[in-house]
Each structure stands twice: as structure tokens, then as C-alpha cells.
């Protein structure tokens, strides 16, 4: 029964089926299942499949946005039932699009994938100045600072952000991504990691956290 519900949750997320996701989430509560398990073995499992399909070119952003709707609908039902001690302290990621840049589809996909993988994401949004990244890293005691840019005019702020967040927290790891970036540019900018798109961002983040 429990496995059926978890598979149902995962399938609902993969299909972007909001009604089914809500029903499965409610069923899991009724069956007295652990909410954290439902999130990780149901919703997150489904989103991981979606992420892999995107990486392989088998699904696209419209479908991912539907999956996100389904996942969020289930999470809204499950979250109030999370036990305070049920999870380990999640790794914190400060995420944002650098100054001058208002393109945030890529950043929002990264956020979605990271949250599904269990990271706590502090989303600073778009057009974020260096000082705001620094303040957030300090205030949240973040583990990772992740920067996105879609324009060559805004990616130039990445070295400043990387330098400044490392100044306030030397142990922080940084990762960058976005259309005009490459692994070589990321290295030049002093980033610890580079994700070419949202589908690989989780792997890069996990590898970086493990390496610290």
C-alpha cells in the first residue's frame, strides 16, 4: 500500500498531474506514512526522473513546469506533517542571477531540482548585486553560493561575488552556470564548480559539498 502511494506520488510529479499528486499526498497522510519519506521517496524521486529526462532531451521546460506544479501541490499537503527531528540539517544554497540580468527561467529550474534533492535554497531572485549575495551568505551561514547569468554583460560580476563571499566565509563553495558560461570561464572566475544547465546542477552541488 505504502509503496503504491509513493509510486503514485512519483508518477504524478513525472506526469505533472496536480490532482493525482494531491490525492496521493492525502492518501499518505491518511495511511499515517512519514511525510519526509513521502517527499523524498515520492515527490523527489519523480522530480529526479524529470531531471534525467530533461538531460537526455526527452522532456522540456513546459513539462517540467507542470511537474513543479504537481510537486508543490503535494508538498503543500505534506510539509505541515513533517516531524521536527525527521531530517538531517539540509545543506544551504544561496542562489541568484547576477546584477543586470533579469533572466531567471534557468535559475528557477536549478532551484526546483536542488529543492527536490533536499537542499535548502535561499533564492535571491534576479538582478542581484554583489552585496546582497554577501549578506545572504553571512546571514544564512550558507554552504554553497550558486550564481546564474544569461548575458555576457552580467556574468562579469561573478568573479566579484565569488571573491567577496569567500572573504566573509572562506569555507563556502561556489558554483556558476548559464548560457554564456563555460567550464573554462568558470575556472577563470575562480568558481569551484560549473553546471552547464539545471539538469546537472544537483550533481555538481552534491559533489562540491562532498569534497569539502
Amino acid at each position, binding site marked *: 500500500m505504502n509503496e503504491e502511494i509513493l509510486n503514485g506520488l512519483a508518477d504524478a510529479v513525472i506526469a505533472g498531474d496536480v490532482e493525482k499528486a494531491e490525492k496521493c499526498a492525502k492518501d499518505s497522510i491518511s495511511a499515517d506514512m512519514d511525510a519526509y519519506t513521502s517527499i523524498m521517496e515520492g515527490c523527489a524521486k519523480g522530480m529526479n526522473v524529470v531531471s534525467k529526462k530533461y538531460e537526455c*532531451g526527452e522532456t522540456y521546460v513546459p*513539462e517540467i513546469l507542470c511537474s513543479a506544479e504537481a510537486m508543490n501541490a503535494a508538498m503543500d499537503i505534506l510539509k505541515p506533517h513533517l516531524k521536527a527531528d525527521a531530517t538531517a540539517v539540509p545543506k544551504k544554497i544561496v542562489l541568484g542571477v547576477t*546584477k543586470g540580468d533579469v533572466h531567471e*527561467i534557468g535559475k528557477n529550474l536549478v532551484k526546483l531540482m536542488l529543492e527536490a534533492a533536499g537542499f535548502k535554497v535561499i533564492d535571491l531572485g534576479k538582478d542581484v548585486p554583489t552585496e546582497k549575495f554577501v549578506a545572504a551568505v553571512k546571514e544564512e551561514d550558507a554552504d554553497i553560493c550558486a550564481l546564474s547569468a544569461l*548575458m*555576457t554583460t*552580467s556574468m562579469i560580476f561573478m568573479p566579484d561575488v565569488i571573491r567577496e563571499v569567500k572573504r566573509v566565509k572562506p569555507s563556502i563553495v561556489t558554483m556558476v552556470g548559464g*548560457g554564456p558560461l563555460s567550464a573554462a*570561464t568558470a575556472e577563470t572566475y575562480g568558481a569551484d564548480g560549473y553546471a552547464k544547465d539545471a539538469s546537472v546542477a544537483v550533481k555538481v552541488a552534491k559533489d562540491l559539498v562532498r569534497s569539502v
Partner: protein
Amino acid sequence: MFGLMTGQKIDRIPVSPFAMGYAAKVCGFSIGDFYANAKVNFRSQLMAADMHGYDSSPMYGYASIGAWEFGGKIGFPYEVGHGAPYVIEHPVETPEDVDRLEIPDPSRAGSNPISMEVAKQCNALGLPAVFQVGGFITFAGNIMEPARMLLWMIRKPELVHKVISKVLAFQKLTADWYIDTFGPEKCMVFSGGATESNKLISAKQFETFTLPNEIAINKYVLDKGIHSVLMHPCADQNANIPHYRKIREECGWRGRYVWNFGPETPLEKQIEMFGAHDIIGGNVDPPSFQTKSFDEVIMLCKDNIERGMKNPSGYILMPGCELPPLTPPINVHAMMTAARKFGSFE
């Protein structure tokens, strides 16, 4: 470039660096003024072309087209970090807004008056009067907010179709306005957009939402007598290429088309699909102009030239998108040097 497009004998491959914000900066203007002021736009493009000796003529356009034209708000790129106009307010936020959306008067809509002013200055010098059509997914995304549009492509596809049909009607009116002002033989169409990228949508979604409209607008301008079209399928559109070919087939391969794909699309693939009829425009990796050295840019251009010159219908050295505004001028010189050294016909 005009020589290549009109079938005249040329002594080297043309160079068109797709320089917009770069032209402003290298001439000492702000990028904000470049997009907000037709005189600055025209003059800086002309001066930069004259300084470097490249072959493109001025044109007005930007990727956020559509929002302002249909009643939303854009910001001009005056801040550090800005590279082009950006949308502040999308005219469609709710399903009800779609029905309320009116087809604007092209002579007063958004950036159209600025674009027309640039075209008039071009026309006065015998250069083509360029206007922007096509790119329906990009255009509609700017009207509806890209993520909302992408979600509605599945949840409320009829609303996306409805917006796109209004975009098509507006683009036809815009085409008429330019053709009536200059005559079709003096006009050139620019068509492109990045939201069509296969990083965002599938080839099937391209086929469903945009292909019929692309065929319609291309047929429309060709039937009106326009001969020159610059197609810029921005970013990774490899999966859409068969559909772009379908546009040309449906139009009987009429007109002189230039294809400027993103750097993700190999030149060989473009030659295979379009080379019997159409010119291929470069596609050197754009960020490399900003981040690499003079020697590295020369080598990237050399490789592109050697592969592109195999196109039987002609080749233009171009970046695969707009030249980064912060490109060091020496790397535009590298383009010119590579074209003279490796792209000469003498």
C-alpha cells in the same frame, strides 16, 4: 554583404559582427541611449562599421520585443550589467488579459517608431530598411512572461495560440507599414528569437505553436515583394532545423535568405539543409569574443571560415548571436583580420 546578397562578385567573405551594444560602447555612447534613441542607434552602428571596416548595415531590434508593443513596459539598459532592453511589465498576466489584448497600431506601438526612424536613416543612405518579425514564441513569451507561456503551452494551449495569432496580425501590419513607406525592394526582414531554443521547448512544440505562423509571415512578406530575409534561430535549435527547412520549402525557396544559427549548430548541418539556396552566416561562439585572446579569436574565425566557405550559396562571417557588448575592440579586428587572411577570393 550587399554584393553577396545581390549576386555580385566580391573579393572576400563579408563580415557582420551583429554588433549592437558593442557599437554603442565603442563609439562612447551608452547602451541605454542606443536602444532609446534612433539617432544614437544608427550613428553608432555606422561609425563602428566604418572604424572596423565590417560590412553590416544598421538595424534596430532586441530580444524582449513584444511586451512594450502590446501595452506592457520595458526598461532601457542604462545600468551596469544591462546589455539590452528588458521587460518590466508583461501585458498578459491572467487568462482574461488574453481576450483584452488589442492588436496595436504599428506606427505607435512600443519600439516601432524608433525602429522606423533607424530604417529611414538607413534608407536615406541606400541601406536596407530592416524590421523585425517572426520569433513567435519569443514574442508571445515577452507578452505573457516566458515561464507563464511555457506552462500554458500545456495547461492552456488555446490561450497561447490566441496570443500568437494576435502577434501574427500585428507583424503583418508592421510589414505593411514598412513596405508602404519604403517599397518592398528597399526592405529587409530580421526574424529570430531565443525562446524557441530546444533548451526550453521541443521540436514538436515548435511545430505546433510557431511553424504555421512562421510559414504565414514568410509567405506574406515574400508575396509582398520583399527579397531579403535574415533568419536568426537563436541558441540551440538543432531539433527545429527540419521545421525551418519546411518554411523555405513551403515558400518555394523564394527570396535571398541568410541563416545565422547559434554556435550549437554545426555549419555542415546548415549547409546540408539550406546550402543549395541560402547564405550561411557564421556562428562563431559569441562569449569567446569577450573572454578569449586575439590569437584565439583568429583561430576560431579561421575554423568557421574554412568550414563556412564550403557553402555553395555563400557565407558571411558572424558570431552565433549578438556580439557581446563588452568585447575588446581588438577581437573585432581579429574577425576582420581572419576574413582578409582566410576568406579572400583573390
